[in-house]
């Protein structure tokens, strides 16, 4: 028997997923790239061609500001999420197996929730009639209930709500792999727990922390509903405008050009993460 036939799976098995993903994943991206260079037909869809009009249109102050808004919102969410998620994950990884499972179930349940449901739930929580405003008024902190949405605060809360479970789950494998004896050793040598955390745990996890921040950044770049539900029009991100151009303005070439730019930003970020992972 040759070594080839010795493997547990036949070679043709790869053809099924390869063909499926090529047709339904790679081809759509190729078409999208083509459409981004196509000529727009107002009122209709587009006609094939090669022009850079859609990309040129993006280089205006208006869309420049949108890109900047998207990047600033996602960067803010990434920083807040990782700052909150890191201590959470470190504590979680030290808990017993059963308690860990319970917390993970809660995190997965929140993570799987639709952006629509998160947007709706938070807008209810921050609303005048059903939200924390009622609670604060009841406590006497404020005179009368008020709404806290739509606002930048509400939007940032939403982004963090969406991305926090994700950040924890991204940090969970590297943190749980960390040898607990190292922190132990530092404490035996006389370091306070906080000092051991800053001088041993944090430096050892610098690469995963940076990687998690980038993944949260890319994850929140794609957020489409929250800016509309919780934010003001000034907070509309690139994703909102991509959908708006594709569905409501019927300008597929421009939507495709914006998506290609977003794709390049995301790929660059993911590339950096992979390089970081390899350097480790």
């Amino acid at each position, binding site marked *: 028997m040759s070594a080839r036939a010795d*493997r*547990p*799976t036949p*070679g043709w*098995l*790869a053809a*099924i*997923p*390869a063909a499926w*993903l090529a047709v*339904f*994943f790679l*081809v*759509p*991206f190729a*078409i*999208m790239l083509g459409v981004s260079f196509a000529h727009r037909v107002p009122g209709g869809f587009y006609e094939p061609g090669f022009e850079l009009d859609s990309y040129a249109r993006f280089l205006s102050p208006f869309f420049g500001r949108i890109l900047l808004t998207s990047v600033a919102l996602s960067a803010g969410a990434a920083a807040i999420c990782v700052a909150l998620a890191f*201590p959470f994950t470190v*504590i*979680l*990884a*030290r808990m017993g197996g059963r308690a860990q*499972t319970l*917390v993970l179930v*809660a995190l*997965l*349940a929140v993570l*799987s929730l*639709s*952006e*629509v*449901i998160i947007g*709706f*739930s938070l*807008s*209810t929580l921050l*609303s005048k009639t*059903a*939200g924390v405003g009622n609670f604060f008024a009841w406590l006497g902190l404020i005179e009368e209930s008020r709404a806290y949405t739509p606002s930048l605060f509400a939007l940032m809360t939403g982004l963090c*709500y969406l991305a*926090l479970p994700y950040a924890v789950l991204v940090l969970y*494998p590297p943190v*749980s*792999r960390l040898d*607990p004896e190292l922190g132990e050793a530092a404490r035996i040598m006389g370091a306070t*727990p*906080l000092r051991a955390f800053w001088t041993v745990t944090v430096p050892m996890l610098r690469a995963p922390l940076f990687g998690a921040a980038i*993944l949260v950044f*890319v994850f929140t*770049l*794609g957020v*489409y509903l929250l800016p509309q539900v919780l934010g003001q029009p000034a907070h509309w991100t690139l994703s909102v405008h*991509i*959908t708006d151009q*594709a569905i409501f303005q019927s300008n597929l070439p421009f*939507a495709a050009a914006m*998506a290609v730019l*977003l794709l390049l930003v995301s*790929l660059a970020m*993911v590339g950096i993460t992979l390089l970081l992972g390899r350097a480790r």
Partner: protein
Amino acid sequence: MSRKLQAAYILVILAALAAPIVVVAGVSLNAEQALLFPPPEMSLRWYGALFSSPDWLVPLRNSLVIAAVSALLAVLVALPLALHVWSRGGLLSRALYTLGVAPFMLPPVISALGFLVFWVTIGMYGQMAATIVSHGVFLVTLPVVTLSLGLGAMDPALVEAARTMGATRGQVMRTVILPLLLPYIVSGYAFAFVLSLNEYIIAYMVAGFTVETLPIKIFNSLRYGYTPIMAVVAVLFVALAVAVFGLIGRFGNLPRLLGAERVEER
């Protein structure tokens, strides 16, 4: 940090994550068509309304059909992919694995637009089949990850032993590999199913005006008239997710499935 402080930190974060869901659960119990919390009068009428109003029954059915079939597609593609990557290395394997996890590494709005132009080009824009296939491709990452973990955890000596005893490739697959993989197949399917139910942007871009799913219906209601039914759907989605992940956690090793290596046995 002391133990108490640590526990407090975990509980505060979990409470913050639970707060909107608690309020929405309260809102779903309003007797009147109003979003008040705490509800002045309680009633379960909106739970009945979800299952009796055609406005909501059609999206409910759409969502369930799409989730059931697309999760199946995702598993059917992920299984040969993960098996191939596991049994042989090389460029093709690495390329396939990258392709399998790529949908989750990119903002979904990009994939959504890709699917939109694809279905427009081949003339299937607006059909339920388009939503199902798009979800099946997008969610393939989840079973790919769970199956790869399952195959990685499998003892190669078992396959070896079966081969030595004279089992053919097909017999090894049927009697050794697939039974051992079953829990990972089931959890991969469950992950994909729950995520498909909740997915909005792809379903909206591919067939949002003709095949309404529950998230699309909720978003439309956010714009044109609030009703406590929205809260009911949110509560049911949370309950379903907790049930599914709870079952996986009960019968499987969830920390392990999510990549932990040092977990004390229960």
